[in-house]
């Protein structure tokens, strides 16, 4: 983490460098912003052809060991793919699928790993059902219940914000089981009895669903190892913070470009508006916030999994990336004037993305609260 001169070191692998290059080009080619707008209007949940390309590039298996068909790298390498996709507001199931795979890696039984990880590498979409109607970010605050009945578990309750639930072949649900938290895998067949309802969400590039589990039952063999479910939830939370930070850093970079383009072309009072410091200086501030967030992001990526420092780093990255994208996209709306108030202006797409990402796994203030408890109570 620190070099011999006690400066922090960002670990950056050759694989990360390669992937960053490939993903940057891929995202630019496949996700121009008019494409994001077409996705919003599209009736099907996902653009299958682009998804297939991402699968064939091996991106779903980046952080999955080779024995299960992946490439045996880590989340640091996933970050280099997610960041450019975030820049172009791609709304794909890559992040949620990766998170489910992470949970299975941490707490899955050998059988579960053997079945699901290879499928995920080959493009099976997986969805996460963690959030509940109370909206609490504490993943252990569970009202969805699993009740044992013989060799089956009967579920009840509602989960919200389950993205891509309709396309998913696998949904990972967090439940309360005998007063402890547990994680259950549901395949398409098990989901049959659930009521799945489309949600209207602020980030329109997402497809999000509310799932009512009453009447759903699965074999107990679908339970991730109970003794490891707390560790799996922790892994999901930290990996989500990391990948959301990547998505938000990408987004902040994209919206800075958007607003800078406008400031370089729009004229008022006979001058390009970018020459006005009331606009120029806040955009520079947004750039500084992005620079800082991005440095934290790649630091966190490099040390992901480290017992304490790893968690500190992802929470810092999430807090700073959230602030950066929020500020940059908020100012981008204002700096487009009346056009900024329109649906046609791209600034709103980024602002919506910012609110979506902040609402997932805790916003900046929530992260800082966790950081305070981790850092300020040690009497050093």
């Amino acid at each position, binding site marked *: 983490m620190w070099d011999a001169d006690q400066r922090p070191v960002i670990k950056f692998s050759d694989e990360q460098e390669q992937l960053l290059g490939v993903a940057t080009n891929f995202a630019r080619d496949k996700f121009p912003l008019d494409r994001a707008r077409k996705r919003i209007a599209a009736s099907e949940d996902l653009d299958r052809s682009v998804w297939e390309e991402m699968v064939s590039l091996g991106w779903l298996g980046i952080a999955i060991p080779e024995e299960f068909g992946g490439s045996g790298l880590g989340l640091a390498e996933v970050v280099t793919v997610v960041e450019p996709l975030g820049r172009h507001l791609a709304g794909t199931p890559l992040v949620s699928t990766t998170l489910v795979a992470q949970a299975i890696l941490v707490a899955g039984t050998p059988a579960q790993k053997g079945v699901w990880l290879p499928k995920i590498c080959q493009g099976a979409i997986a969805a996460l059902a963690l959030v509940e109607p109370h909206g609490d970010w504490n993943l252990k605050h569970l009202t969805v219940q699993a009740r044992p009945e013989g060799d089956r578990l009967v579920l009840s309750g509602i989960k919200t914000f389950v993205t891509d639930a309709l396309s998913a072949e696998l949904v990972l649900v967090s439940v309360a089981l005998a007063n402890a938290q547990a994680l259950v895998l549901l395949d398409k067949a098990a989901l049959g009895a659930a009521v799945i309802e489309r949600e209207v969400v602020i980030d329109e590039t997402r497809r999000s669903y509310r799932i009512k589990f009453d009447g759903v039952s699965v074999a107990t063999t679908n339970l991730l190892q109970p003794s490891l479910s707390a560790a799996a939830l922790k892994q999901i939370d930290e990996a989500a913070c990391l990948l959301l930070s990547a998505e938000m850093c990408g987004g902040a970079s994209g919206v800075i470009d958007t607003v800078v383009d406008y400031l370089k072309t729009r004229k008022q009072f006979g001058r390009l508006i970018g020459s006005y410091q009331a606009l120029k200086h806040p955009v520079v501030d947004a750039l500084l916030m992005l620079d800082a967030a991005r440095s934290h992001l790649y*630091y966190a990526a490099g040390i992901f999994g480290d017992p304490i420092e790893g968690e500190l780093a992802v929470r810092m990255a999430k807090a700073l990336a959230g602030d950066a994208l929020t500020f940059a996209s908020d100012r981008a709306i204002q700096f487009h004037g009346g056009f900024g108030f329109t649906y046609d202006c791209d600034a709103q797409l980024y602002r919506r993305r910012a609110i979506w990402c902040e609402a997932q796994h805790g916003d900046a203030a929530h992260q800082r609260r966790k950081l305070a408890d981790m850092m300020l109570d040690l009497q050093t």
Partner: protein
Amino acid sequence: MSPDKQDLDAFRREVRAWFEKNRPADPGFLLPQSFMEVGTDEQFYFLRDWQRKVYDAGYLGMAWPKEYGGGGKSQTLQDIATREMVRQKVPFMTNTIGLNWAGPLILNMGSEDQKNAYIKGILNAEDIWCQGFSEPDNGSDLGNAQLRAEPDGKEFVLNGSKIWTSLGKHAKYMILLARTNLAATNKYEGLSFFLIPMKIAGIDVVPIRKLTGEFGFNQTFFADARISESCLIGQEGGGWQVAMATLAFERGAVGGQAGGHSMMSKEVSEVVRLARAAQRNGHPAIEDPVIRDRLVQLIMEERSLALNSARARIKPLVAERPGSIDMSSKLAGSEYQRRLNQFALSLQGANAAYYVGDKNAYERGQWQRSYFNSFSATIGGGTSEIQHNIIGERVLGLPKS
């Protein structure tokens, strides 16, 4: 040939031990926190002797050429030594203007005579340098500098004044931007750049009292002061380019400096300690949720500075907007220091209102003083507002203001 890892580790141990053994004892008076704040003679001589000691030990100018007084070694070694000075919080190298901007400038574009005359004295602090850029009426608009240098045979005659001259009272030489041609087609082309002696007839240095109540910088008056044409560096009329090259060294955007640190920065860990000591509602301030949130923000911000430099060393991670981190480090670092100091004051509760000199002032009032002094870096070297302009225009390509 660059030294291998084993050599580096051995060197690091050697430097570490040397500074541990030789760090000066507390002189019993408050030391300045940067070269811009050297006010009294006792402060100056203390710092000058310290710089000489570090140079004599071989830890300054290590990568500068041997023939002029440098160490002729690799930059990596100097970086290790500099880093160790920062880490051990030993006093800074006071001849900053010589070490970090005049020196590299002279090595880069000075004549053989100039290199022989100036480099050694910069390193051993025998010859202190000051900078004559800002004028009473022209500060941020440096290109509009009006101090007159009128050609007269093989000499130039200087008239006018420079202001905010740090170290001016102790300086033997000055880097000077002056107007040699009043008829030039634009304001930049009339400028020339000189390396001038300070102790000559017609130059008068008058101390200015700064906001802390102490003395620090000066106003320098020029009345028919005569200098030789050999003082020119660069072409007559080419002063603006030389000034820009100097500012690139000053802001650390380009390498080649002698090394050593030029200011003492506060660290957030010191403020966390303060928050444990300070009281709110009968409890340690560190238990207050609002204060905790601010502390976390400052901790993250301090890390951002270090992580930015770490990322700047990884090419693919700065390819998107090259130069962004280098160009913004002065802005980010100085504004962070100002906010950190400000917060340290508010933590003290009612006691924030004490000042240096009162026996109840927390840590001798050093936070009150360092808060005021933190503005030296948000104003000097190009204000934060000017830095915003520069970053907006050069990194983001926004139109000029």
